[in-house]
């Protein structure tokens, strides 16, 4: 029995020849306990994984349920505070800038309001306001009189020259 020509023109002949060649390979049979071992190992590992998953889920729940109150009650460790401060500082920065702008605007409005109120409550200011009011009233009265005379003159009839 010889080896096949690997580069024969006839593909089918090459395929058949190599199939025959490989049929001479010694078969390697699995040992007697192979199937049983494989099944038991697969089952054991699967059960172990399931147990680990359950434990991991229970541990995660325990951390969430007991960890948060513990941190609050016992005080957070320094690294937690530092991390929270770093994250918080970055995230809140823009908010701080906005709040500063609003506060400055509010301060300006308060200053302006205070100045106006201070002026309003001064005695001289009150006197000046009353004088202005009286002057305004007198001016209105004079204007009214002038306009009344003018209206009377106009309605005296057609002009006759």
């Amino acid at each position, binding site marked *: 029995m010889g080896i096949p020509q690997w580069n024969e023109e006839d593909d089918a002949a090459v395929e058949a020849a*190599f199939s025959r060649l490989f049929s001479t*390979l*010694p078969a390697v049979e699995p040992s007697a306990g192979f199937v049983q071992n494989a099944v038991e190992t697969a089952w054991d590992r699967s059960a172990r994984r399931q147990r680990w998953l359950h434990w991991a889920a229970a541990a995660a729940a325990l951390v969430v349920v007991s960890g948060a109150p513990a941190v609050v009650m016992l005080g957070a460790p320094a690294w937690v505070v530092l991390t929270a401060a770093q994250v918080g500082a970055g995230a809140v920065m823009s908010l701080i800038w906005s709040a500063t702008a609003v506060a400055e605007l509010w301060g300006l409005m308060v200053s302006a309001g205070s100045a106006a109120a201070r002026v309003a409550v001064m005695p001289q200011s009150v006197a000046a306001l009353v004088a202005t009011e009286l002057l305004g009233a007198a001016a209105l009265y004079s204007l009214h009189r002038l306009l009344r005379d003018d209206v009377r003159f106009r309605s005296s009839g057609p002009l006759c020259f």
Partner: protein
Amino acid sequence: MTPSDAELVRLALAGSQEAFRTLVSRYASAAVNVAARLVRDRALAEDIAQEAFVRAFARLKTYDQERKFSSWFFQVLHNVSVDHLRRRRLETASLDTLQADGYPGPPTDPAASPEAAAERTALGSALTTALLRIRLAYREPLILKYQQGLGVEEIAEILNLPQGTVKTYLHRGRKELADILAAAGWKP
């Protein structure tokens, strides 16, 4: 009636150990044979095959039942073998080492003459050695095609390679194998 692979997978997923045992029995021989051609010793081949079954069981939920189970399983076996080979740089084994590791002789035809049977045994041994000397990239497609009888399309799926690449590897593998056997004194 013999249950199909897909039915056995469904039963195994439902918790039937017996169904998984049937599945393992069905593919144990093929798995050990393929692994034995990729690594140098029989015990290691059994370990790799066992690990492939364990990994396959762990990932049974990901098996698409539209696909052939054999393709999916050989893909798992290929991954386990490659992982192993990456971890350990294996030397090529001599025939003596393989025989000492418990490889049986090649299958012999009872009707054949003693001379023909002896020649067949010798060729089987030479082929075993030659296979271990060629590149793994060529060796695996050759084994899957000529020992397991898989088609190029299926091999491409298992090895995650384009079909053209598989054909190239088969061609080069055949050439290397023929060259090694010819150098060892085997004539066409």
